[in-house]
């Protein structure tokens, strides 16, 4: 495909997700595809580590973040653990701003940008990340990959909303048969491309692998028959 494709891997600061990420990066690089960035999701911010549970969990996460920095030398963006579910266009917009502009748009993130050292790193890394996310005159394809449950859908939605708000005509696609994408966006996503209400420039659709498989099978078999393998 001629358009540039950029895989982003989403992970949690946890051993299993790191292992999966390393495997994905290796496999992709064997194919000559270079993962362009990581998004580490669900980070517990320092001010939240006030109780023993969160303090312990934050300590664990910091260990794994150090491991990620050591072993997976890629531009890395961090996404804080939020006080609520990432669901609906409004919240996704905020997440997008946090991911792309490095600024907090609402009280949800409090004073994060000022207290976390990660905020500085975020800005540095964005300079590296943005040129590979923006179309720059070509059509751009962005893949979100990673272990199940790490926030791929939320990251895809937030990215798509952010890009649409930058005036890029954006199509958001999923192969998730459970239409999880629609749940996260908070608007139904169907089998046909349709505009996403409340987000100009954003369109979404889902690819149902089962239905696509059936259609594909029928097409192949009828092709084969048309080429004469069948009439006996």
């Amino acid at each position, binding site marked *: 495909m001629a358009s540039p494709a950029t895989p982003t891997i989403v992970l949690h600061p946890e051993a299993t997700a790191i292992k999966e990420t390393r495997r994905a990066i290796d496999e992709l690089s064997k194919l000559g595809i270079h993962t362009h960035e990581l998004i580490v999701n669900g980070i517990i911010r320092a001010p939240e580590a006030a109780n023993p549970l969160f303090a312990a969990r934050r300590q664990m996460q910091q260990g794994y973040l150090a491991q990620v920095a050591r072993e997976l030398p890629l531009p890395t963006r961090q996404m804080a653990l939020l006080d609520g579910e990432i669901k609906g266009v409004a919240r996704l917009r905020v997440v997008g701003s946090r991911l792309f502009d490095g600024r907090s748009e609402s009280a949800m993130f409090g004073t994060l940008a000022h207290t976390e050292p990660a905020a500085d790193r975020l800005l540095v890394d964005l300079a590296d990340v943005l040129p590979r996310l923006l179309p720059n005159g070509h059509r751009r394809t962005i893949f*979100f990959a990673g272990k199940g449950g790490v926030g791929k859908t939320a990251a895809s939605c937030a990215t798509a909303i952010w890009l649409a708000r930058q005036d890029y005509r954006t199509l958001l696609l999923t192969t998730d048969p459970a239409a999880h994408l629609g749940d996260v966006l908070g608007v139904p996503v169907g089998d046909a*491309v349709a505009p996403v209400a409340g987000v100009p420039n954003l369109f979404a659709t889902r690819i149902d692998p089962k239905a696509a498989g059936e259609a*594909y099978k029928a097409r192949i078999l009828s092709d084969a028959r048309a080429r004469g393998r069948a*009439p006996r």
Partner: protein
Amino acid sequence: VIAVMREELDSPCTEEIAAFDLFIDYAAQDNWEVVVFDTAPTGHTLRMRYAMNDSTTSLPSELLDATHTLAAALAQAEPIVAYRAARARLDADPIARGLLERVAAAQADLRVRQTREALTHVHVDQLRALQRQAQLNRVTMDYLSAQQSAMAYLPDVSLEISRLPGVDFGALIGRSSC
């Protein structure tokens, strides 16, 4: 052959390829500046990317040259020449093509009815009538037999290649690991 193909197609692999196909269709549409793809977990994505990269070969240049020579030689081989000629005649003959297409459509319809247990003798008879018609058409029959010969010829080529290093390439090619 169709039964074997159908069996081969009954795999999760097919769904992945099909979903990927659709994805490519969307990604190739001109009206998007950005396509954001929320994928299923990693393995699936890797296969998709693999399929995507399949079209750009990574063969070493000497092998690539050799395949080009082989392809050029094959294009001169009698069964292949006959097949291409028959195919060209079929493509130029809307009636013959229409016949094969109708047979294919009737067979697809029959299969759907079969799974829904709505198959009747009327449908089977219709298909048989179409098949008889196709058998009476010279262009379709020429095409089908040329195709059979070409398909029978290619394994000979693979056998000949396999003789040299002692590897059965035919058997290797037949198995697609998805």
